[in-house]
């Protein structure tokens, strides 16, 4: 490593700790405290990547999170790899490996560089215009484009790290720990407000902390020295929590903010073990103070993107904070005084500054005078017209600017240099403010957008509020803070400040060259390779809305969201279209401010914790007996029980036969159960179900169909009258929560006069359903003294009973068409009762069956499943269930809709049975049904909703919805499939035991 590029001293770098790292396979070292960018610059490495479209060599441009070019892939030889990391943010650690993105095969030899040579053919919208036609070719183009232009590689292995979420509630959140943020946070905490101060950097103090600015004094000390002392004292303040390496990603309404706290990314591998990598902070703050600072702007001129061209403030930060020099021969290019601070800082460290190119006519500030006195050449009223050097800047050319700033005159000055610091003024970082819904105003004087209308209790302070000079920062902060916190004084009201005023300003969004614009490359968005030329082209092609220009040219659409160039893009549009910046507005800044890892977003919700799931009390038994499971809503339900290597089909056929020939048992615990009580319970059921409930006797059960107000079937289930004013309603497994919500809605908002109380008891009861011709014998074995005669315990009735010591509610109801009983017990007895049923049923070969067999058995009987045979567009009439719709009841939910002209149409889709001509062909659920194969386009009559091979009927059966199907019994229709057409006939949907004899068998 050449030592020339590391100058001493820097108190922020620990030169006693050497850190080795790899970049693009080569070994380097830096020191503890370096970022990857500062360590690379110290090794004189500027070339770190290739641009997205033209594959131009690109170098480190900034020293912060706004970096557009130095985007790298981080890996460390483990499963850990992360693309799109900004080299300016990542702190180096022993063993870090980073590599360039966007280049193939390597950053020095890049095939995509050909794009640069043919760039005249790659204007704005080129990809849209070319690769979209013909559409079928897109796949081929995409392969080539992705291969040469990717944005890093996504990890292929499981993320080895652990992430966390934390909720924080505070009185005041301060974002940004520069001088304004520190003073604001300290005063908030001192006024007994619970305060949280966060900063994305690892050090507090923002840009004030490292700058020894000659003309900025606080209490007659250098502002940096003064601030250091203040920071030391922060540790002793109560109510103040400070989080560094914490970047606020999003500012939502009602002062809800998301921040990422980075805990281990700066540690070497062995120290990362067992620690949480990143934590997502979900912060709800009563008040928010934004002290997010300002970002320096570049200047837009021909070939302004070569490695070695950096922001002037970055050149200064690398020198002041990291002790790193970015070049041997430095030139600055500016439209304001900031560059002079950088130049003077280098000069004072003994580093060569060749010249300053300034587009202004003059400036008489003290810092400019000091630079002049130091003998640094200043070219007033000049602009850079071109730069040279392919992989590293080697020379610039400057010319005199015309008075109107639109052209250049005179002769060319060529200056050889390897680093150019560019200073285009400052853009307040208002991103979070606008994310929160804040409205901006344009300040014509500084050419900046500033916070104007605040949507919540928040304020912006310091340079993000347009205060750039120390004196105005501190005095405005004092005034605003007192108002915001409602206090009389701050502890810095009487601090003595010295800073100088900048008078001379000149802003030109697009600087002219001696070449016509068509022959130049003035980059506005470095990451996405959008030039001023592209923006002008978009305007010529008729784009006017700033949002449209953005998408067409891709300006501001990179991972950096165009933090550097967005203002210039707006400026160039305003100038070209002849409108005012204030009329143009800005594009929307969207969260996150800087990219978040997926790991941080999901936190601990990975693997089995990704989503919640529910298990029945019999779950262990199902697992022990090798059940396969299916997800029904959040429930894990036993799907089928394969025995001796059976396929699913074989298992389901066996289970289905057993249930009809002897006995089957199903875990029905997941059905929704709602306990309904109150003197108006019967009236309530009358209003929510389509059928009548008043005459249902105590101890009796009834099937009910529930509609939406639009007449469409919503849910179904059996409800049992347990007592005079007491019912137990069951709902579908998936619909339980929604049904309860809907019923509560009607009770609370439409019928508050009804005396009815609803309680969800789904989890309180476990249900074992035994069915089949031997079910009665099994129940008799379980409860010998219970009268199971038809007279005493008929179909659709209920009894309280006891099996051993376990109390149970037994309903004689059936979803299979077989004689069957549902035994409900308190949940914790679920497994015990199940095992008792299995034991008692042993001599009858009782067979456990899962949801698939349940579906098959009910389809044999033509029973619908809400959500499978209905889809929110089926009325009970469509389902041929007219029998359940009461004609006598004056009203129930959805009744009026059944008489709308639309719901009464004859040609609505109606539920029918389907039989295939070939009984061995099982239809696909969802298959489309047509009547005329020669029609074009063919008219779809409907589709198959349920389809099975019935082992009991020895043929395939299906349910379907067909337009006008009700009146098409016996009609032959067709189901065209990819490889064949299947002939089907419309039948009655009840296929098995049409007279319901088995229920009472």
């Amino acid at each position, binding site marked *: 490593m050449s030592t020339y590029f590391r100058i001493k001293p820097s108190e922020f770098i620990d030169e006693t700790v050497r850190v080795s790292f790899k970049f693009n396979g080569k070994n380097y070292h830096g020191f503890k405290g370096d970022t990857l960018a500062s360590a690379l610059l110290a090794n004189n490495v500027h070339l770190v990547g290739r641009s997205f479209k033209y594959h131009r060599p690109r170098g480190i441009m900034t020293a912060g999170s706004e970096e557009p070019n130095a985007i790298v892939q981080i890996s460390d030889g483990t499963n850990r790899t992360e693309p799109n990391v900004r080299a300016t943010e990542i702190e180096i650690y022993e063993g870090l490996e980073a590599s360039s993105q966007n280049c193939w095969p390597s950053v020095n030899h890049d095939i995509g560089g050909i794009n640069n040579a043919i760039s005249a053919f790659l204007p704005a919208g080129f990809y849209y215009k070319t690769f979209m036609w013909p559409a079928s070719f897109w796949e081929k183009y995409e392969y080539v484009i992705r291969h040469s232009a990717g944005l890093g590689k996504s990890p292929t292995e499981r993320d080895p790290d652990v992430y966390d979420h934390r909720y924080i509630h505070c009185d005041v959140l301060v974002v940004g720990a520069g001088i304004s943020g520190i003073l604001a946070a300290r005063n908030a905490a001192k006024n007994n407000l619970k305060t949280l101060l966060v900063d994305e950097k690892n050090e507090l103090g923002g840009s004030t902390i490292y700058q020894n600015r000659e003309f900025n004094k606080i209490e007659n000390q250098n502002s940096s020295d003064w601030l250091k002392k203040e920071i030391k004292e922060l540790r002793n303040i109560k109510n103040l929590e400070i989080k560094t390496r914490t970047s606020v990603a999003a500012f939502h309404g009602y002062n809800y903010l998301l921040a990422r706290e980075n805990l281990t990314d700066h540690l070497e591998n062995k120290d990362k073990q067992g620690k949480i990598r990143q934590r997502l902070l979900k912060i709800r703050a009563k008040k928010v103070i934004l002290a997010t600072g300002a970002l320096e702007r570049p200047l837009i001129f021909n070939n302004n993107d070569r490695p070695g061209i950096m922001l002037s403030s970055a050149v200064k930060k690398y020198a002041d904070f990291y002790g790193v020099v970015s070049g041997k021969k430095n030139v600055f290019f500016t439209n304001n005084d900031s560059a002079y601070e950088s130049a003077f800082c280098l000069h004072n460290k003994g580093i060569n500054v060749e010249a300053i190119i300034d587009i202004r006519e003059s400036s008489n500030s003290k810092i400019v005078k000091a630079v002049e006195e130091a003998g640094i050449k200043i070219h007033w009223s000049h602009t850079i017209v071109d730069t040279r050097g392919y992989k590293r800047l080697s020379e610039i050319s400057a010319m005199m600017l015309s008075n109107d700033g639109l052209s250049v005159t005179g002769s060319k000055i060529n200056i050889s240099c390897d680093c150019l610091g560019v200073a285009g003024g400052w853009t307040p970082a208002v991103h979070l403010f606008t994310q929160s819904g804040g409205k901006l105003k344009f300040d014509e004087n500084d050419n900046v957008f500033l916070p104007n209308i605040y949507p919540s209790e928040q304020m912006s302070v310091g340079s993000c509020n347009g205060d750039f000079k120390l004196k105005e920062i501190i005095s405005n902060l004092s005034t605003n803070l007192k108002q915001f916190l409602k206090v009389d004084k701050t502890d810095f009201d009487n601090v003595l400040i010295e800073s100088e005023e900048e008078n001379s300003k000149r802003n030109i969004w697009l600087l002219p060259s001696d070449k016509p614009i068509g022959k130049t490359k003035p980059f506005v968005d470095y990451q996405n390779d959008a030039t001023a030329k592209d923006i002008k082209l978009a305007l010529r092609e008729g784009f006017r809305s700033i949002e449209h220009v953005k998408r067409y040219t891709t300006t501001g659409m990179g991972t950096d969201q165009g933090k550097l160039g967005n203002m210039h893009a707006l400026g160039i549009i305003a100038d070209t279209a002849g409108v005012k910046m204030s009329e143009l507005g800005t594009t929307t800044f969207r969260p996150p401010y800087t990219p978040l890892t997926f790991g941080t977003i999901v936190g601990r919700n990975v693997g089995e914790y990704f989503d919640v799931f529910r298990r029945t009390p019999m779950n262990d038994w199902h697992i022990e007996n090798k059940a396969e499971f299916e997800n029904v809503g959040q429930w894990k339900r036993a799907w089928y029980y394969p025995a001796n290597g059976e396929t699913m089909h074989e298992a389901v056929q066996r289970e289905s036969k057993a249930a009809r020939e002897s006995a089957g048992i199903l875990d029905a615990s997941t059905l929704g159960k709602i306990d309904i009580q109150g003197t108006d319970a019967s009236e309530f059921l009358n209003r929510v179900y389509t059928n009548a409930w008043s005459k249902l006797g105590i101890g009796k059960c009834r099937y009910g169909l529930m509609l939406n107000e639009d007449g469409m079937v919503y849910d179904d289930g059996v409800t049992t009258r347990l007592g005079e004013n007491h019912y137990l309603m069951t709902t579908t497994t998936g619909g339980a929560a929604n049904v309860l919500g809907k019923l*509560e809605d009607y009770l609370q908002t439409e019928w508050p006069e009804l005396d009815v109380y609803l309680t969800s008891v789904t989890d309180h009861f476990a249900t074992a359903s035994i069915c089949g011709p031997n079910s009665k014998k099994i129940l008799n074995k379980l409860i010998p003294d219970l009268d199971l005669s038809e007279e005493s315990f008929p179909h659709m009735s209920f009894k309280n009973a006891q099996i051993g010591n376990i109390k149970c509610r037994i309903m004689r109801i059936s979803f299979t068409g077989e004689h069957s009983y549902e035994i409900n017990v308190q949940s914790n007895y679920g497994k015990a009762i199940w095992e008792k049923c299995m034991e008692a049923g042993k001599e009858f070969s009782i067979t456990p069956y899962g949801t698939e067999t349940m579906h098959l058995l009910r389809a044999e009987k033509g029973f619908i499943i809400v959500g499978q045979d209905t889809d929110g567009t089926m009325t009970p009439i469509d389902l041929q269930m007219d029998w359940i719709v009461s004609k006598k009841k004056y009203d129930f939910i959805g009744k009026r809709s059944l008489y709308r002209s639309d719901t009464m149409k004859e040609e609505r889709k109606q539920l029918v049975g389907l039989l295939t001509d070939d009984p061995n062909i099982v239809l696909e659920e969802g298959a489309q049904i047509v009547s005329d194969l020669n029609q074009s386009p063919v008219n779809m009559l409907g589709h198959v909703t349920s389809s099975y091979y019935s082992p009991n009927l020895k043929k395939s059966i299906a349910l379907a919805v067909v337009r006008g199907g009700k009146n098409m019994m016996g009609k032959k229709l067709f189901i065209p499939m990819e490889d064949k057409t299947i002939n089907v006939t419309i039948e009655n949907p009840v296929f098995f035991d049409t007279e319901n004899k088995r229920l009472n068998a």
Partner: protein
Amino acid sequence: MFLINCPYCGERDHQEFKAGGEAHIERPKQPTELSDDEWAEYLFMRKNIKGIQFERWNHAHGCRKWFNMVRDTSNDQIKLIYKMGEKPPAE
């Protein structure tokens, strides 16, 4: 990311709540007397205002109570929250 002041529980994050559409649309007492158009008006027609809107909300993952909210849809500011059955403010 609203902070909603449930009239029964106090301020809670909006994730606990469910929005229930426009408020003060009363279910007709005698639906069978209504024409198709009148019923359709009740059933389908809802306002979608940019500005002050009256809405129903439910504290679904809390006390399960329904209540009314006056919200400015242009900036998501909650102007007022009041219980079911209480009269809406006169603008």
